[in-house]
């Protein structure tokens, strides 16, 4: 599918062989064209096999066992944590807390740090481009605690209005929580600068990294975020596991979240003492096989090189925006390719996004249609839904061409 004199640095022919699903025929003669990585990424064989192997050879519960399998499982689980910590350049693996997903990571902060530190009237700054995962936990806290919410507006070209942000910061916010990269517009927000400004204003910063960690090199020490949340399943890893990174002192100061096995140092009938980091926040049997898979996913990305991945995605995205723009009736949302990751959200005049996605699916092209868990952003743009094509390390320009041809077919059917 990919010609060998292609200029990209990633060897797409080899890479695509790593992903068994990309070979799938959905129906006779209809090969999969997967353009929905923003929802969840596909998994390379190395990740699938690592989990398979774990269950076939090493499966045991961790931490409390002294037998060989328990020791092996514990080592595998904790080694994965170390590699993930290194991948995001955390100072220590103790700052990497396993959760189910980005959503749980954000809720963990809302339930522990925020409930321990926010009083009625305290201001939390969010943005208009947040995923529901970074809105609803704060809605819940607003209802329960009477905190105040305000929002950094999104401009018509899909960027955060940083002038208004500056004004909001003058109102003494306690927390600023924003997405590093929008899952609809693709916008990569200037996180380091936003964090610096928030810190100057005395606020704690939580970054939703669900879309950034899979696609960009992120460096916790350079960014200086207080909390950072992401999911394995969007970065070639398994479902069922995510991470909350936090600054050590903050994590140590926080009350625990879920109570149970492993998060304790000692339990009496009527009281308990919490364990040290990171176990304090990991109650019960964790997603062990998933941690093993996550570690291998991080190795896979590291081997390819995050800079190479970002460069490849940039090239594909630039091409995709160019080609989509040419199609009469297509309206693209979000900034130009140089300010965004591999996401192209669009509407097609006269055709509902669900119909676009469904008709593309007849040719095996998987795009997402809907509000992409960002209803307020869609409302802002006055539309109920968009179609979204998204690109990852395994996507090719040929697949963009298939998408464009598919959209012409849609137009013909509804023409």
């Amino acid at each position, binding site marked *: 599918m990919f010609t060998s004199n292609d200029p990209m640095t990633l060897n797409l022919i080899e890479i695509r062989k790593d992903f068994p699903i990309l070979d799938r025929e959905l129906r006779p003669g209809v090969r999969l064209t997967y353009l929905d990585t923003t929802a969840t990424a596909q998994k390379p064989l190395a990740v699938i096999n690592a989990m398979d192997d774990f269950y076939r050879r090493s499966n045991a519960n961790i931490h409390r066992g002294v037998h060989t399998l328990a020791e092996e499982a514990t080592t595998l689980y904790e080694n994965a944590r170390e590699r993930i910590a290194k991948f995001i350049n955390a100072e220590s693996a103790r700052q990497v807390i396993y959760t189910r997903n980005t959503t749980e990571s954000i809720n963990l902060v809302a339930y522990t740090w925020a409930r321990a530190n926010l009083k009625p009237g305290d201001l939390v700054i969010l943005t208009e481009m947040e995923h529901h995962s970074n809105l609803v936990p704060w809605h819940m806290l607003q209802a329960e605690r009477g905190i105040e919410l305000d929002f950094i507006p999104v401009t018509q070209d899909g960027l955060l209005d940083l002038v208004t942000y500056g004004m909001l910061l003058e109102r003494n916010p306690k927390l600023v929580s924003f997405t590093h990269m929008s899952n609809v517009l693709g916008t990569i927000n200037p996180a380091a600068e936003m964090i610096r400004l928030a810190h100057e204003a005395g606020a704690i910063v939580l970054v939703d990294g669900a879309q950034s960690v899979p696609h960009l090199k992120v460096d916790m020490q350079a960014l200086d975020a207080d909390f950072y949340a992401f999911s394995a399943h969007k970065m070639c890893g398994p479902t069922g596991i995510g991470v909350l990174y936090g600054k050590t002192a903050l994590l140590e100061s926080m009350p625990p979240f879920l109570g149970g096995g492993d998060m304790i140092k000692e339990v009496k009938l009527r009281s308990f003492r919490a364990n040290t980091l990171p176990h304090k926040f990991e109650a019960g049997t964790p997603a062990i096989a998933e941690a093993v898979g996550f570690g291998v996913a991080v190795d896979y990305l590291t081997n390819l090189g995050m800079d190479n991945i970002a460069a490849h995605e940039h090239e594909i995205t630039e091409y995709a925006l160019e080609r989509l723009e040419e199609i009469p009736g297509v309206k693209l949302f979000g900034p130009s390719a140089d300010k965004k990751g591999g996401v192209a959200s669009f509407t097609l005049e006269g055709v*509902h996004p*669900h*119909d676009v996605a*469904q008709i593309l699916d*007849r040719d095996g092209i998987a795009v997402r249609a*809907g509000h992409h868990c960002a209803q307020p952003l869609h409302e802002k743009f006055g539309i*109920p839904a968009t179609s979204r094509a998204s690109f990852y390390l395994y996507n090719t320009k040929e697949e963009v061409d298939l998408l464009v041809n598919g959209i012409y077919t849609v137009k013909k059917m509804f023409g």
Partner: protein
Amino acid sequence: MDDLYREVIIEHYKNPSYRGKLDPHDISFADNNPLCGDHIQIDLRVSPDGVVTDARFDGHGCAISQASADLLIESIIGKPLEEVKKLNKESVLELLGIELGPVRLKCALLSLKVLKAGVYGLQEASDSLVE
């Protein structure tokens, strides 16, 4: 799959026969599919002996939801409410003449859900449609 966008569906979507409102009406109800923002309102006129004498739908959404609304309205005009109450998932799929996966099923059934909510009251309607 290939008949998911049968001519008839696209035709009912592009040129619906029963789009609009009824004023006055005896029953009116609206709801939306939160997954995609599809919105349907249905107005009914019902005779004293419980027969649907006229009906219209209004709203916006995908071809499946709008076409199924148009087809559904067409099918109930002239029918007694008791028969309308008996309509189910299968009735709608028969009208559309296609098979649907779980997500698009919600689009297809939105108009039926609205209709039943109008006829029965909301709770029973959603109970009767839960997959």
